[in-house]
Structure formats: structure tokens, C-alpha cells
């Protein structure tokens, strides 16, 4: 017995040790991850972010250096009051700020770096850099911020912001304090523009001093610079569009139909992209974002979804021809509207009657299109089948769904089909007379300006379009092939000519006669959209939105455009003028219709936008007077061109 005491104790201790070691080194130990190893300092080197050029090679976005003070909370040693005061002074923060920021960083992670004070000014950086050694646990991280070479195109260019924790969790490439594209092309081309940051692993000692590269630097990487990109935007056209949109709300999208390249993408009101750079970014961004009245961060060219109104009529004409339910010479009578029995299903304005297709489009006759539309839907005994065929045709123009392009935001729009009305009214408990609003682009049909511009491009191309996109060229890379393959509509090429002739006559002798541009054959279509808001929970109608869709020249079009102006009243009043000016600007490079330009620049819709918030009763549409901007001092031809579409 006496012999066994030490022996058993030795064996017991051995077993306990092995168990403890097993717990520490096998059970409780995760696979070695150098990023978790606090003995290794990770020093990131940020690459140059790719520059952005416009289609003519003009530099739009470059970079500027920025310096963030970063903190690793567990390495911070308490500062005595004198040092603390100096440090806070250099950073321009209070002592309470210091404590709060430190606490916040520690809550995120005691061992990972967090930004402490981001984006120092150059002078602050110069002073601080000298003294940085004194403040253990803090260091300065150099990054590159954007430097905008322009004041336009905020919605196109987008901006950079700090990554949030959700992104870091999904994409571990990003570390707290990193910048990432938040909107626009910065978001959609983030991976191309950002490059890959370089990293150096440095062996530290326990006093946090560097003692040399980890494993002689075999894991270190150099930063890979981001690629420069050229976008399809014509910055002069974009700037001109933004100028025209001043004092209005709305969107303009212009596309090159022969390539699908977006030439301009205007939204109003907009803001200066330089507001979203630097230390004030978050403050400015939330100010813009919270402006629910003007909604400057809402891209009206891409996100404003409304019934398109009359421009949609040409789609119905094309579908009618394709389905062979109407011939271009078929004439329909219009008695200031369309009557079903004695019930008027839709009104119309005064014009000569009866009308054939050409006059129907040029005069924008509602009755004509209700007739065509009903023939399409009622072609088969089953209205649902007719509706589905109609919807498939309409969707082949890129309507009713996302365009699947390279823009960071968008809306689907809506093209209703048979199922939609089955759900609405019950299976087969509806007929074509229920849904005649679709004939004239009202009712359930909805589209965004970019979809309408694309629709115009497809018509101008006589039956195909390229997915509208914003990327023109990526340094050392190709652009996705989906942007280079045409998408064909379901309408045969031969049906387009008469419809295009109708759209040409809109300018020639129809609702946009006064908008003609000498020397350019423009095909267009005016539109309006009724709209309502709730004021104190009462549905209240506001002045109609002004819509215009066009392409030019008539043959081999170079530009297709959609303009949408909130509460601009009829189509040719604001949207039509602006579309004509944009087309002239792009094709000729200068403006000859200075009268149109003057009118647009001197007329504002701002008092129109104030009405719903005024708390007082107000008038709309024809009963309002237009606001003239005093500083232009021109009291000229405010005479309106009085055509109704």
C-alpha cells in the first residue's frame, strides 16, 4: 500500500494534465486564424479606387487621401489627464466624447480596430502624426476618399460610406472603418472600382512594438489598384438636363438606342455629390435622406412609377397590328370619348373624327385606342387569354419587370395580365370593358421613366433594344455580354413604320407641333398622369404629371428619351419642351430653340409642390397660374401652348 501512494498520484496528475491540455488545445481551440492572433499586427494598405470618366473621357470622380484615427481598445493604456487633454484637443473632441467613443469601440470588439475619429483634415493629421506614438492603442489609417470633379450627377455617381456590421458579416473582406459604395455606380461597380487592399503581417511583442515581418512577409500582399471605368453618361447632356430640371421635380432618362447606353439620367431635385464626402457625410446624408418632401435621394428617373398615359398607346397600336385585329386604315369614330352602349367609358378631347391609326396616334384619340385594345382582349372567347397575350407583347418592350441592368435602384413597373384581373374580380368575372383604362396607359399599367425611354428605343429600333446600362468601358476588362446582345420584341419589324409615322406626326401636326426642332426629325408622344395624395386622410387630386417620350432622328435614332415632370400638367408643357431641348442639345451640341429653353428656365413648379403642405384649399390643373422665377427677370412668352393630349 505504502509503495502505491506516489505512483498513483503521479499517474493521476499525468491524466489530469493530459485532460487539461486536451481541453485547452483540442477541445477549446479553433483552427489557427492569423486575423484572430493578437500577436500579429495587420497593417492594411488601401489601393487607389478606380477613377470614373464620362463617355467623352472627361474625368468625373478622382480620389483624395483621408486619415482616420483608429483604436484597438484592449491595447489602449489609460492616459494621464494632461495627455488626455492634449489628445482630445488634437482630435477636436471632448473628454466625454473620448470615453463614449472608446466604450463604443470596446462594445464592438476589444481586439479589433474600430474607427475612432474618421477623416481628419490634412493639417490635423500633420500635427497628430508626430505625437501618435504617445497614445498606445491608437493609430492612423490612410484611406482614399472620393474627390468629385463635377457638381452634377449625384444620383448617377453615388457615394461611399462606412461599411456596417451586416456587410462585414456577409463579406469578411471588409473591416470596420472601410468605405464601400452606397449608391449609384459606386455601389453597382464596387468590386471593380475598389481594387483589393494589401496587407502586411507584422510580429509584435508584448509591449505592442513591431519586431519584424511575420514569417519574413510570405503572407503579405500588395494592394491591387481599382480599375478605372468609363460610364455611358454624356456629362454635358447630364448637366443640361439638371439645369432644365431646376425648380421642378421629376426625371429624365436618355438612351442611345443603338447600344442601350444611358446618355443622361437626371433626377430633380438633386444635390451636389461633394456633400457626401468627408466628415460631414453622415450628417448630410441623413439630412438628404430624411427630406421626405423633396426626396433628393429618390431617383425619379429610375424609381418614379406611374401610369405612363398616352405614350403607352403606341404599344397598343403595335400589339393590334401584330395580332391582326386592326389595320392601319381602320377608322373609328370619336364622340368626345368612347361609349359602351350609352355609357361613356372614357372621354376624349376635340378633334376631327373618325380617325385612322396615324391620326389616332397624332391626335392621341382615346376612343381609337379603346377600340383597338378591346379587339385585342376580345380576340379569343376568353378575355384572360387575350389579356395574357397582350401582356406578353407589352413585356417584350422591357415593361412590367426589372430591366436587369447595372443600376443600383429600380422598380418593376406593372403590366397586368389575365391572372391579375382574375384575382381582382374573380375568375372570368370580368371583360374588356372593365379594363379599358389600359388602352390609354392609365389604370393598372405602370412604368418608370427609364422603362419608357427604353420602350422608345425599342420602337425607334423597329423591334429590339439593348438593356439600358451605364458602363461603357472597364480598364483592362470587358463589359458584360448581356449589354451587347439585342433583345427582340414580339412585334414584327414591318408593323413599326406606320406607328412611327404616327409618332412623327405628333410633332408634325399633332400635340407637339410647337416643339419642333429645325433639322431634326423627332418622333414623340405626350402623356399625363393623374395623381393623388392623402391630405389629412382625404384623397386629394393634384395637378397632373407631365410626361413625354421621344426618339430622334426618325431613322437610325441616336437618342431615345423619357421625361417626367411632377405636377407639370399636360405632356408638352414641361416634359415635351425639355425632351426637345435635350434631343437638340445631344444631336446638335447647341440650342437653337432658345425660346423653349428660356421658358423652361424661367418657370418653376415650386409653389405647386407647396400646395399639399399649405394646409389651405388649392386649385389644380387648368385653374392654376404658373410661377415665373423673378431672378431671370424675363416676363416673356408665358403663353402656354394649349394642346391636350
Amino acid at each position, binding site marked *: 500500500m*505504502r*509503495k502505491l*501512494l*506516489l*505512483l498513483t*498520484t*503521479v*499517474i493521476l*496528475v*499525468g491524466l*489530469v*494534465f*493530459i485532460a*487539461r*491540455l*486536451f481541453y*485547452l*488545445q*483540442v477541445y*477549446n*481551440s479553433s*483552427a*489557427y486564424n492569423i486575423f484572430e*492572433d493578437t*500577436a*500579429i499586427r495587420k497593417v492594411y494598405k488601401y489601393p487607389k479606387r478606380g477613377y470614373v470618366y464620362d463617355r467623352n473621357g472627361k474625368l468625373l470622380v478622382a480620389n483624395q487621401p483621408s486619415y482616420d484615427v483608429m483604436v484597438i481598445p484592449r491595447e489602449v493604456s489609460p492616459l494621464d489627464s494632461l495627455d488626455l487633454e492634449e489628445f482630445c484637443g488634437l482630435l477636436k473632441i471632448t473628454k466625454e466624447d473620448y470615453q463614449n467613443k472608446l466604450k463604443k469601440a470596446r462594445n464592438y470588439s476589444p481586439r479589433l480596430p474600430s474607427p475612432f475619429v474618421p477623416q481628419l483634415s490634412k493639417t490635423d493629421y500633420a500635427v497628430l502624426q508626430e505625437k501618435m506614438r504617445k497614445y498606445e492603442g491608437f493609430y492612423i489609417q490612410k484611406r482614399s476618399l472620393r474627390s468629385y470633379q463635377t457638381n452634377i450627377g449625384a444620383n448617377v455617381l453615388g457615394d461611399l460610406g462606412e461599411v456596417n456590421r451586416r456587410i462585414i458579416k456577409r463579406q469578411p473582406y471588409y473591416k470596420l472603418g472601410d468605405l464601400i459604395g452606397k449608391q449609384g455606380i459606386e455601389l453597382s461597380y464596387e468590386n471593380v472600382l475598389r481594387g483589393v487592399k494589401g496587407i502586411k503581417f507584422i*510580429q*509584435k*511583442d*508584448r509591449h505592442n512594438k513591431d*519586431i*519584424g515581418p*511575420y*514569417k519574413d512577409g510570405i503572407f503579405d500582399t500588395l494592394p491591387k489598384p481599382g480599375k478605372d471605368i468609363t460610364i455611358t453618361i454624356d456629362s454635358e447632356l447630364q448637366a443640361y438636363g439638371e439645369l432644365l430640371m431646376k425648380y421642378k421635380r421629376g426625371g429624365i432618362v436618355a438612351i442611345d438606342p443603338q447600344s442601350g447606353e444611358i446618355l443622361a439620367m437626371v433626377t430633380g431635385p438633386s444635390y451636389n455629390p461633394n456633400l457626401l464626402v468627408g466628415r460631414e457625410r453622415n450628417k448630410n446624408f441623413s439630412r438628404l435622406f430624411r427630406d421626405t418632401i423633396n426626396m433628393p435621394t429618390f431617383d425619379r428617373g429610375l424609381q418614379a412609377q406611374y401610369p405612363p398615359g398616352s405614350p403607352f398607346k403606341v404599344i397598343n397600336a403595335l400589339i393590334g397590328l401584330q395580332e391582326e385585329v386592326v389595320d392601319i386604315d381602320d377608322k373609328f369614330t370619336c364622340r368626345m370619348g368612347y361609349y359602351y352602349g350609352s355609357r361613356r367609358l372614357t372621354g376624349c378631347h376635340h378633334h376631327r373624327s373618325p380617325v385612322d391609326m396615324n391620326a389616332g396616334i397624332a391626335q392621341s384619340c382615346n376612343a381609337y385606342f379603346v377600340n383597338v385594345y378591346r379587339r385585342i382582349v376580345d380576340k379569343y372567347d376568353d378575355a384572360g387569354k387575350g389579356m395574357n397575350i397582350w401582356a406578353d407583347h407589352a413585356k417584350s418592350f422591357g415593361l412590367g419587370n426589372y430591366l436587369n441592368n447595372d443600376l443600383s435602384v429600380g422598380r418593376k413597373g406593372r403590366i397586368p395580365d389575365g391572372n391579375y384581373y382574375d384575382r381582382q374580380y374573380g375568375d372570368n368575372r370580368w371583360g374588356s370593358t372593365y379594363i379599358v383604362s389600359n388602352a390609354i396607359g392609365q389604370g393598372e399599367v405602370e412604368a418608370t421613366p427609364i422603362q419608357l425611354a427604353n420602350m422608345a428605343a425599342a420602337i425607334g429600333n423597329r423591334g429590339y433594344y439593348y438593356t439600358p446600362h451605364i458602363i461603357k468601358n472597364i480598364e483592362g476588362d470587358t463589359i458584360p455580354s448581356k449589354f451587347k446582345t439585342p433583345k427582340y420584341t414580339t412585334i414584327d419589324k414591318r408593323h413599326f413604320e406606320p406607328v412611327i409615322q404616327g409618332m412623327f406626326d405628333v410633332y408634325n401636326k399633332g400635340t407637339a407641333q410647337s416643339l419642333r426642332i429645325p433639322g431634326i426629325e423627332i418622333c414623340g408622344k405626350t402623356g399625363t398622369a393623374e395623381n393623388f395624395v392623402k391630405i389629412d386622410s382625404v384623397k386629394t387630386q393634384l395637378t397632373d404629371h407631365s410626361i413625354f417620350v421621344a426618339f430622334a432622328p426618325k431613322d437610325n435614332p441616336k437618342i431615345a428619351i423619357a421625361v417626367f415632370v411632377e405636377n407639370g400638367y399636360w405632356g408638352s408643357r414641361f416634359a415635351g419642351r425639355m425632351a426637345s431641348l435635350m434631343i437638340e442639345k445631344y444631336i446638335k451640341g447647341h440650342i437653337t430653340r432658345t425660346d423653349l429653353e428660356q421658358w423652361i428656365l424661367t418657370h418653376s413648379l415650386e409653389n405647386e409642390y407647396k400646395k399639399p403642405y399649405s394646409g389651405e384649399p388649392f386649385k389644380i390643373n387648368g385653374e392654376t397660374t404658373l410661377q415665373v422665377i423673378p431672378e431671370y427677370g424675363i416676363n416673356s412668352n408665358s403663353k402656354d401652348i394649349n394642346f391636350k393630349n
Partner: protein
Amino acid sequence: MLRENHRGFKFDWITIVLFLLLVVFGYLNILSASHVGEITSYFDTSQLYGKHLIFVGLTFVLIVLILSVEAKFYERFASIIYLIAMLALIGLFIFGKDVNGARSWYGIGSMTIQPSEFAKFATALAIAKFISDIETNMKTVKDQLKVTAIIFIPAILILLQNDAGSTIVYLAFFFVFYREGLQQVYLIIALSLIVLAILGLKFGVLITAIIATLLLASVYFLRKKNRGSIFQYIIVLIVCTSFSYGVKLFYEHGLKPHQQNRISLWLRLEKDPAKLERMKKAEAYNLIQSEQAISSGGVTGKGFLQGTRTTGKFVPEQHTDYIFSTVGEEWGFLGTSLVVLTFVLLIIRILYLAEGQKSQFSRVYGYGVASILFVHFTINIGMVMGLIPTVGIPLPFFSYGGSGLWGFTILLFIFVKLDSNKINEW
């Protein structure tokens, strides 16, 4: 028997192989833990690993010397060796040199010698000599007091030099005494005292007293025969309670703050999070770093000279008391379990050999060697892994330092010599 087959080599080769394994592996880890920057020459004596290589080289000279001396020399001169060792310890009070608050070194030129490392084998020899004396009877209180005195003299001297860790090592001789006839009751008392001390500190004197009462009462009622007077039980209870209270008093007033904090951390006594945080930064700093280094090694380790925490010198005193954390980081679970296994095998081998000795002197000495190695092994590795409170003692054959390496080598190889002489009694 094995060694009869090896006519030319009469020393126990298993012990020697295990010893070599520890020394070589120890040297490799010291190299890792102590090098700064590139290793230009392994013999660079301005570096600790260079010095240690020389210590290792001299160790072999020492071994040859020890093995060439006649075995009976050690028994005959045991008392003299003990006396010299004690004088060396006493001399420290006059000629000693302060290092980190402990006065346990002689400085000779650039060399330092730590006599306490040599006092261990000297005491082991003296104990063996005393117990193996025909007139000694370990069952008598008189002789028990005498052996206690033999170990108390060096223990007290070392304690006075502020080296509490090395003092604790002398508790190892309890195993020797027990083997040589110390009554079982001492074992029971020793275990009870340890349990009482821990209970008292962790749960308070009152709860300890209640537990003791319940235990004694159940013993009293379960024992139908010879249960003795109830007053005996009451006296035992009073002794237990007073001991527990005494430990508490000693903990609160007798210990230095850093010792107090080490125990407090070990038993998790501190409830105030702010103070706990401070203690973790001070007393537990080494331990936290060492545990992190060991954990980070995983199963296979980061590789020789590849440990990031070892390279960065994150664990203070890593080449001495905390050398085991280097093994953990660079060689992983495979390396650490190999070291543990090697120690266990070495101790068991020594015990096995000791039991086979014909002379009581050799047997007692062998037991002493095994016990001292065992206590060092247990305390050092237990401390580095956070199983027991921090006590600064080296890992035999492994930790950096000439005195330590030589002290343990002499300790072990005297036994190897004695063992080799077994068949050829004098």
C-alpha cells in the same frame, strides 16, 4: 534483469534516454523562447540559448564525474554534503546578491549560482542517510522530529531569502517519509488540512464548520464499536474549525498582497469586477498569456520557431518558469502530451528502480529523487495551465538556467550511480 544483459553499460538506459529527451527538447524550446531576431550562431553566448547550450555541454561533464565517483562515497559523505549546502545557503545572507527581491544567488564574475538548487539533492542524501540508519525508526515521534528538522533547515533558509516557491518543494519529502513508515494518520491529517484550508477560504469558516460537524457526526453514528468518547469528536471539530479560521487569518494578514491575489484568482474569490480586472492585468497576466499561447498551439502547434506569441515574447519568463507554454504554442497537444508522458514515465521508472534497491539508503534516496521531480513537475505545469496558483519554480531539465539544470542532473545521476551499484553491494 535488463542491465545484466548489458555487461559493458551497467547504467539504467531508460532513465538516461528519458533524461536526454527532456534536456534536448528543453534546449530547443529555450532557443525558441529566448532568441531575438535572427539566430546567427548557436554558440553565441551573449544570447540565453547560447549560454544554455554551454550549460548542457557542462552537464555531460558533470554526469561523467558523478558516475565515476564510487557509489559508497555518496552515502558516506551525505552529512558533509548536506552541511556544505546549508552553509552555502546561510552564506547568502552575507555574500548573496538580490535578484528580483529574492536573495538566492551568488555572483561570481558574470556567472550566478543558486545554492537552493543544490540544496535539494543534499537534503535528499541527508534524509536517505538518516532514515537508513539502523537506529532510526520512523514510527517514533523523536525520529519524526529529527527528519522534519533536516528538511526544515533548508526550507526556512530559502523562505527567508524570499523564494517561497522553492520552499514548497520540501513538502515532497512527505512521500518519502510515508513510504518509510510514517503512520497513515499523518496522511489523513495532511489531506484533511488541505481540504479544510480550501473550504475555509472558498466558502467561509462557518460552512466549513458545518460540513465538519456533519462528517464527524456521521462517523460517530456509523461506528458502532470503538466509537470513543463524544468529547474526542468535539475536540477534533474545534481543531478543524480553528485551523480553518487560522488559514483565513493567515490568508488575510500573513500573505503578501500578490500572494493573496494569486490564491484569490485560483479559488475565484474576488467578486468585484473592477478589482478582478486589475488582478488579471497584474497577477494573472502571465497566466493569461501562457494559457493563450498554449491554446493557440492547437493539436499540432505552429511549428518550431514559428510561435507568434513566443517570438513576440508575450509570456514573461517564458524561457524559465513558463517554458511549457512554448511547447504548447509551437508543438501543440502532441508536444505537450509528450512532455507530460516523459515526466510521468521518468518518475515511474525511478520509483520502480527505487523499489528494487537492496540498500535502504539507495531506496530512500531514489524515492526522494522521484518526489522532488514530481513536485516540480506538478507545480510548474499545473501553474502554467492555470490549475494551481502561481508558484515560481522551474520545470526540471527543461527551464533555462545552469544551477537548476545541474542541480537536477546531480540529483538524478547520483541515483543512476547508486542503482548501477545494486548488484555489486559494498
